[in-house]
């Protein structure tokens, strides 16, 4: 039976709990869940440096509102997926209580405790659901690799805010998601599966992102299963076919929103 380890950005991540529950439904063995500690000044400062004031919006949505952030029931989002699939776990610790899966807190996912865990468990795969950069020494010990789902089409759109960048550049057909193996670069690893998710007429950017988040869970689970069963090949990226994008300035964001 295939064994996987999960990397998570926080114990409250709905994206993580959704993926873990879906993987358990597919009868995969989850050996452990490594979770980044939330109360950590180093993490706070590095994230505020990266996200700016948007970090507070993220905290509000992901840690305070959580399921309440998805108020509309008529559109596809993480909440509708969870209802459809009858998923109930909202906290990574619940997997420890119900299934005895170890949940280990760490400051970063590159710590010795993670290395020791990988050496002890010898997983077939690591599923990354967020939590910062992963260093080479971790990537090397992750069996067949660390799998991530990127909210953008690779190799064209690497980096941050790529949904917004695709729209700004007038390429709505290049809005989508990609499951790939992580390497030392930013979104430069081998591609496993790509899915285009063009915006619907009248859809807002946050609505589109919510819809994409739900699709990311499904695509991640399908891809992990197929990859572990040898049904998928890794496709190396042709980096010259794309660019790395960075956080979009509000002034440019306004151009899309108008």
């Amino acid at each position, binding site marked *: 039976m295939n064994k996987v380890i999960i990397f998570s950005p926080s114990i409250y991540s709905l994206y993580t709990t959704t993926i873990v529950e879906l993987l358990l439904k597919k009868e995969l063995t989850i050996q452990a869940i490594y979770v980044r500690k939330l109360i950590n000044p180093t993490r706070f400062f590095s994230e505020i440096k990266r996200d700016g004031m948007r970090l507070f919006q993220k905290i509000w949505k992901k840690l305070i509102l959580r399921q309440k952030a998805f108020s509309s029931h008529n559109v596809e989002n993480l909440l509708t997926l969870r209802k459809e699939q009858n998923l109930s776990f909202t906290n990574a610790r619940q997997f420890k209580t119900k299934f005895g899966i170890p949940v280990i807190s760490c400051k970063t996912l590159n710590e010795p405790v993670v290395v020791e865990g990988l050496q002890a468990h010898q997983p077939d795969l690591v599923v990354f659901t967020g939590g910062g950069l992963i260093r080479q020494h971790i990537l090397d010990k992750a069996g067949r690799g660390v799998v991530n789902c990127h909210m953008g089409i690779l190799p064209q759109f690497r980096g941050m805010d790529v949904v917004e960048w695709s729209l700004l550049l007038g390429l709505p057909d290049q809005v989508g998601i990609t499951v790939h193996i992580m390497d030392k670069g930013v979104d430069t690893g081998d591609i496993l599966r790509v899915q285009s998710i063009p915006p619907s007429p009248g859809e807002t950017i946050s609505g589109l992102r919510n819809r994409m988040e739900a699709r990311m869970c499904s695509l991640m689970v399908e891809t992990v299963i197929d990859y572990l069963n040898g049904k998928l090949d890794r496709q190396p990226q042709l980096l010259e076919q794309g660019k*790395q994008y960075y956080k979009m*300035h509000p002034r440019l964001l306004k*151009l899309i929103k108008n």
Partner: protein
Amino acid sequence: MQIIHLKLAQLRKWWEIILNHDPHDLQENSLTLIQLSTLCSRPAIASLQLFTPPLKTESSFLEKKPAFKLLNFRDIYLLRHWLQNEMHPQLTSNWAEVILRFFEINLSDIDKKLLMQYGSRLLGEVAFLELTAFLLDYFSYSKDLRYMNMVLKILDQKSLFSPWKITRNLRLNGMHFKSALLKVYLLVKTDLFLMNLDNGFQDQQ
């Protein structure tokens, strides 16, 4: 944002100070001034004798593998010169990508890094502004909005672009003057590009 609210009266005041400045300083900053004059259609400036950037080091610069820490002032002039004259497009593009990446990652503590690299706060500031002007010109050349995005983030640094500081430095000489001149150039040209972008998006819709 500051540039959106850039007052025309303030701009005219700055322009007056630039025109009334010592011609020697203007010559030394002619690369910027030619662009400013094109932008603002003031032929008086274009008639000034051109300052040629030091091109002697070109061969050594051509051999450098793009890395931000290797950039000195001559290299920056060369890059801007190449861009203006559409020379070595691939190499210019590689350097533009390296500079963009460095600024994106290090913007929050860029002043400390530039102070270490260029030896003084003022030289670091001028190098930073020259490189920002390079990124803006590269946007103009490539139409790659990632470069405009970076320039907008830099212009958000209110303490660096305070109108009071610019006006004061335009009355001084040397690097202070150059720094102010570059700031005026960046503010004016970015504002112009944003206007064009707004119009372009309205046309598309």
